């Protein structure tokens, strides 16, 4: 049984990390990052089977790929707080000569990252490749992926989605950050995507919803169900219903904070809504 108090504390600390990273360099993407804080905390602490040492090949452990690379602040925070690199390094986010590039990359050798992302729509393909290699290697571990909902407008996703079902890539769980927002507005406003669930199902995926995508318990139990669905001849899709900007009242339910950093006053306000738990970096 998970220690929910500890996980909740971690979520709050991760929110602080996200806000402080983007504030310092006045750039980066807080909205999507905040909306996925609970998911990342659950994934790295309760769901993935991970080895202690990071290796690129990640043999005999679960892998995670972030396709919507712009939410790097939440990824970096959770990686650091899971021991992949020193928490203090969050101080270097988006600075010159940093390993914490604007979008995650292998180029500077940051532990925890296995492929560059940032140009949208490429993560599911890479995940399928990694999942196929696991099968070839007789490695029974899983591949997890997160992608954005707006990101699904990229056609490459649907090439990948078709491939994975047609070729029974059933050691793969793709979660979609279904926050209904992207840069220019709501997804319905920018490019209506219709019924995403029906689309994945029509392509042959096993699809489930996590309606409370910002609730740790719901995420953990939902993702455990998703795990049980693997190995049955179908790739698994989890529609994670999240709120963009979650945990900071003035950032919630809007695309306005997709890629905008808070100013000093806004940072103070946002942090006061999320008092220190584990200690700032």
């Amino acid at each position, binding site marked *: 049984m998970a220690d929910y108090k500890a996980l909740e504390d971690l979520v709050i600390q991760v929110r602080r990390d996200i806000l402080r990273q983007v504030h310092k*360099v006045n*750039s*980066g993407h807080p909205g999507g990052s905040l909306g996925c804080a609970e998911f990342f905390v659950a994934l790295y602490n309760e769901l993935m089977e991970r080895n202690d040492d990071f290796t690129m090949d990640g043999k005999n452990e679960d892998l995670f790929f972030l396709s919507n*690379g712009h939410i790097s602040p939440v990824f970096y925070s959770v990686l650091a707080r899971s021991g992949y690199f020193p928490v203090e390094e969050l101080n270097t986010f*988006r*600075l*010159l*000569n*940093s390993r*914490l*590039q*604007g*979008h995650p*990359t292998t*180029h*500077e050798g940051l532990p925890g990252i296995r492929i*560059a*992302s*940032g*140009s*949208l*729509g490429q993560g599911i393909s890479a995940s399928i490749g990694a999942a196929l290699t696991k099968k070839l290697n007789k490695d029974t571990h899983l591949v997890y992926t997160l992608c954005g909902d*707006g*990101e699904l*407008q*990229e*056609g490459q996703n649907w090439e990948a989605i078709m491939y994975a079902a047609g070729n029974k890539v059933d050691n793969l769980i793709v979660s979609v950050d279904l926050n209904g927002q*992207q*840069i*220019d507005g709501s997804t319905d406003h*920018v*490019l209506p995507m219709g019924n995403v669930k029906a689309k994945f199902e029509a392509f042959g995926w096993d699809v489930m919803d996590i309606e409370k995508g910002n609730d740790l318990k719901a995420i953990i139990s939902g993702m455990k169900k998703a795990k049980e669905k693997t190995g049955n001849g179908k790739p698994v899709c989890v529609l994670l219903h999240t709120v963009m900007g979650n945990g900071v009242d003035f950032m919630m339910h809007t695309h306005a904070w997709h890629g905008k950093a808070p100013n000093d006053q806004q940072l103070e306000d946002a942090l006061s809504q999320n008092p220190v738990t584990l200690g700032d970096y």
Partner: protein
Amino acid sequence: MKKYTDTGKKDTRSGFGDGLTELGKKNKDVVALCADLTGSLKMDEFKENHPERFFQVGIAEANMIGMAAGMTIGGKIPFTGTFANFSTGRVYDQIRQSVAYSGKNVKICASHAGLTLGEDGATHQILEDIGLMKMLPGMTVINTCDYNQTKAATIAIADFEGPVYLRFGRPKVANFTPADQNFQIGKAVQLQEGTDVTIVATGHLVWEALEAAKTLNENGVTADVINIHTIKPLDAEAIIKSVKKTGCVVTAEEHNFLGGLGESVARLLSTQHPAPQEFIATQDTFGESGTPEQLMDKYGLNAAAIVNAVTKVTARK
């Protein structure tokens, strides 16, 4: 020396946006397409003025290019807008087959080009786009240097029949070319007259070239400074004429030295008037996160680097 005054820093992408707004009013055939970056591309005003001529395609650049190609059939003049990386590398074959090979009148307008995109880092900082685009037969390639020139170029390319790649940037930079300039595709602009070296610059490096020329002048070295806003077709006449006089050249661009303006100039000179050349460009590397100034400094793309290159190249004469 001619004096150039910065009339106030402005971003070149706003030049594109304002040019597009003006075009919207005067040319009913101009249509605009954008892939979820309307604000970044400064296309909001066009969108508000002409909702029926603005097409939000979502995050789907390949579809955008294909749609734009199709819209030319029947006489529309499509302007597509997204970051330079997603305008080129992301959609290369769509541009190659549906636009360039098919000879379609599409204007591919690309912002956030090069290192000065800044903190987003290498995934978004394309330094290969000039090369990609100039290699396509029939493609006109333009990289403007300031707000005024970008606005003028945006308006000018609507009257030009054929595919165009228009490259501009994100940060606010010196605005020094005339607001009422007559933008002529393929025509170099001579900014300074000198006898010791030719500096051929494009995009954000043009202002740096002017700054370099000032420093050089103080040290008794005079430079021809040429603004090459059109990389293809290259103004061979202007470059050869200048290099015949000065005997050496420094090229300057916010792009990889492979495939960029420098290579075009080298190809021209090697066949028609061989001369020593130095390249101010990135050295076959990806970019990284940082502020635009930090990055231009680290990767050697500024006035100081141009001055050093001039010292080197004049010694090789």
